[in-house]
C-alpha cells in the first residue's frame, strides 16, 4: 500500500498544532503575563509576542493598560479649619507582573484597587491637610496650589508604592471633584446672597456717581467753551478797534470836519426809517416858511420821535 502524502501532511499538521498549543502562548500588546510552575511564579513577561512554556507551566495574563481609578468623595480638613470634600482620580498600571501577581491573589485588579485606595486616601489626607483652602481657589495663578497639590499626592503615592513593592505604577493623579459639606453650602449661599446685595448697591452707586461726574465734566467743558469764546470775542473786537484806530489818524487832519461829518451821518442814521418829525418854524429850511430868506442862521430840530 502506498502512503498518501496528504494524510501524512494533515497528521503532521495536527501534531504541530497540538504541540504549539501545549508549548506556546501569546501575550497581547495590552497585557503582561506571568508564568507559574506548579503555582510558583517563575517568569514575568512584559513585552507582547509569542512565548514558549512547558506544558506543566501555567500562564496568567494581566491587563497592562492604564486603569482609571476614582477615590471616594471624602472629607478632609484643611489647616485653616475648612472641611473640604475631595475626590481624586488616578491612572495606574501593572508595572511588574512578578510582584503584582502573587501580591494580589492571582493578579486581581479589584484587590489592587483596594490597596491603591487606602494609599491614595492617606496621601490625599496628608497633602490636602497641609494646604489651606485658599491654595485650591485663587484668582492669582501664583498663589493657586492646585497642580502642586496634585503633584504632591502623586509623588507621595509613588514613594509608597516603591517602598511597599506592589508591582504597580501610578502615572497621574488629578483632583476630580471639590465640594463642601451640605450644611456649609447653606452658609455659602447666605454669603453669596449678601455679596450679591453689596454688588447691586455698588453697581448702582458707581453708576450714579459716574453719571454725576459725566454731567459735571460736561458742564465744566461747556462753561469753558463759552468763556474761551467770550475771551476770543473780546480779543477780536480789540483787534478791530486797533485796526480802526489806524484810520482815525487820517481824521486828525481836521477834527472839526470829522466831527461834522460824524454828526451828519449820525443824523441820517438816526432818522432813517419810519420817522415822524415834528418841526417848528426855526428848523432847517422851514424857517423860510415864516421868515424872509437870510434872516435865520442854522436851525435845529426841536423834537423827533422814532417809532
Amino acid at each position, binding site marked *: 500500500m502506498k502512503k498518501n502524502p496528504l494524510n501524512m501532511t494533515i497528521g503532521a499538521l495536527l501534531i504541530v498544532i497540538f504541540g504549539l498549543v501545549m508549548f506556546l502562548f*501569546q*501575550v*497581547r*500588546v495590552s497585557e503582561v503575563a506571568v508564568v507559574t510552575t506548579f503555582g510558583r511564579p517563575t517568569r514575568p513577561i512584559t513585552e507582547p509576542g509569542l512565548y514558549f512554556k512547558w506544558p506543566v507551566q501555567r500562564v496568567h495574563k494581566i491587563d497592562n*493598560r*492604564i486603569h*482609571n481609578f476614582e477615590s471616594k468623595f471624602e472629607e478632609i480638613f484643611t489647616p485653616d479649619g475648612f472641611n473640604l470634600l475631595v475626590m481624586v*482620580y488616578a*491612572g495606574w498600571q501593572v508595572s511588574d507582573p512578578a510582584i503584582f501577581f502573587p501580591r494580589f491573589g492571582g493578579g486581581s485588579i479589584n484587590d489592587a484597587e483596594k490597596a491603591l485606595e487606602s494609599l491614595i486616601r492617606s496621601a490625599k489626607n496628608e497633602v490636602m491637610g497641609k494646604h489651606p*483652602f485658599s491654595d485650591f*481657589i*485663587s*484668582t492669582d495663578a501664583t498663589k493657586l496650589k*492646585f497642580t502642586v497639590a496634585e503633584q504632591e499626592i502623586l509623588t507621595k503615592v509613588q514613594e509608597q508604592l516603591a517602598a511597599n513593592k506592589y508591582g504597580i505604577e501610578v*502615572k497621574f493623579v488629578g483632583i*476630580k471633584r*471639590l*465640594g*463642601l459639606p451640605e450644611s456649609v453650602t447653606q452658609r*455659602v*449661599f447666605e454669603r*453669596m446672597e449678601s455679596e*450679591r446685595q453689596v454688588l447691586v448697591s455698588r*453697581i*448702582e452707586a458707581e453708576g450714579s456717581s459716574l*453719571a454725576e461726574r*459725566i454731567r459735571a*465734566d460736561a*458742564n465744566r467743558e*461747556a462753561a469753558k*467753551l*463759552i468763556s474761551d*469764546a467770550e475771551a*476770543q*470775542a473780546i480779543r477780536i*473786537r480789540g483787534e*478791530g478797534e486797533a485796526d*480802526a484806530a489806524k484810520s*482815525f489818524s*487820517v*481824521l486828525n*487832519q481836521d477834527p*472839526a*470836519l*470829522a466831527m461834522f*461829518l460824524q454828526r451828519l451821518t449820525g*443824523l*441820517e442814521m438816526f*432818522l432813517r*426809517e419810519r*420817522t*415822524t*418829525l*415834528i418841526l*417848528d*418854524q426855526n428848523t432847517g*429850511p*422851514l424857517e423860510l416858511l415864516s421868515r424872509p430868506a437870510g434872516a435865520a442862521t442854522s436851525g435845529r430840530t426841536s*423834537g423827533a*420821535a422814532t417809532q
Partner: protein
Amino acid sequence: MSNHDHHQHGTESHAERHAGVPEAKPVPLMSDDAGSRALSDALQSSFFIVKILMVLLVIGFFLSGMFSVGPQERAVILRFGQPLGTGEAALLGPGFHWAFPAPIDEKVIIPFSQVQVASSTIGWYATTPEQEAARTEPPPRPTLNPAVDRYVLTADANILHVRATVRYRITEPLQYIFGFTNTAAIVTNALNNAVLFAAAQFSVDDALTRNVTGFNERIAGRLSQLAEQQKLGIAVEQVTLASVIPPRQLSERFRAVLDASVRSGNVLNAARSYANEAVSRAQGEAATLVAVAQSDRTRLVEAVQSEAERFKKVLPEYKRNPELFMSLRQGEAVQRVLTNAQERMFLPTRADGKTRSLRLDLGREPAKPRTPPASQQPPKEDQH
C-alpha cells in the same frame, strides 16, 4: 484509494473467469461482487465529498482572514499579540484587508477620524435622565447634597454649576486603544479636572458673564495639557460650555445684579447724552459769540475806513470854504431826512412866544406797510 480499486478489480476478473467454467454457484458470487462494488462506489464518492469539503474548509479558513475597514475607521493587525508595524505604519486604512485567521493574527478595528464627545460629570445638580429629556428639573432645595448634587467652587469661594462638553479626535489610535482600559473615562476625568481647575481661578462673575471666553479657553488649555501629559492620544477640537449658571437657590439675586447693571447703564447713557448735548450746545454758542465778534470787528473797521475815505475826499473841498461846505452839507442832509420821514408835522411858534406842550400817543402796533399816512395817529395838540 487507487490500490483498493485495483484490488477490487482483480477479484472481479477472477470471478468472471470462474463463472464461465463451473456453473455451480454463480448467483451468490455475483451478488457478493455487486454489493462490494456498490460499497466501494459509495465509499469512493463520500471520500470525494470529504476531499472537496476539506479543500473548501482550507479555502474558507484563509478567506476568513478577509475583513473590511470603514471610512471612519482604522485597523491594526496583532500577530501573536504584537502590532504589525509601529506608529502610523501599523494602521490599515479604509478598504479590504487580509490577516491570518486566529490564533495567528488578531484584527482590531479602531474608530479614527470620528469626533468623540465627552461631557463633564461634576458640575450639575441632581437630575434624572427623564427630567433631562423633558427639560424639567427638580425644585431646588435649600442646600446642595454632596452625594447627588455637583458643583464647582470658584476663586471667590462661590458655588457655580457648569456643564462642559469636549469634542476630540483620536490622533494616536494605538495609544487610545491599547494604552488605557477606558480611555473615554480618563478623558472625561481630565475634562472634570480642567473644569475644576479653571473654576478655581475665576471669580463667579468672570466665569458667568465678564470673561466666559477666558473661562472656556482655560478649560480647553488645561485639558490639552493633560491629554499631552497623560499621553491620551487625542487632540482636543473644541470645548463647549453648554451652560454655566449660579446656584438655582440664588438665581433671583443674580438676576437682581444684572438688572442693576442694566439700570446703571441706562443712567450712564442718559448722562452721556446730556453731556453730548450740553457740550455741543456750548460749542454752538461759542461759535456764535466768536462769529458776532468777528463781524463786529469787520463792521467797525470798515465803517471807520469808509469814514476816513469820505473825509479824505471832502477835505479839499472843505478847506476851500469851510462855512459854505458845512452849510451845504447840512442842508442836503436835512433835506434828505425830511424827505424820508414818514410823517412830518409843522408846529409854528405860538404867537405869544411861549412854549407849546405836545402830547404824543405812541402806538405800539407792529410796523405795517405804508398805509395812509398822518391820519392814523394824529398827535393831539393842547395848550397850557
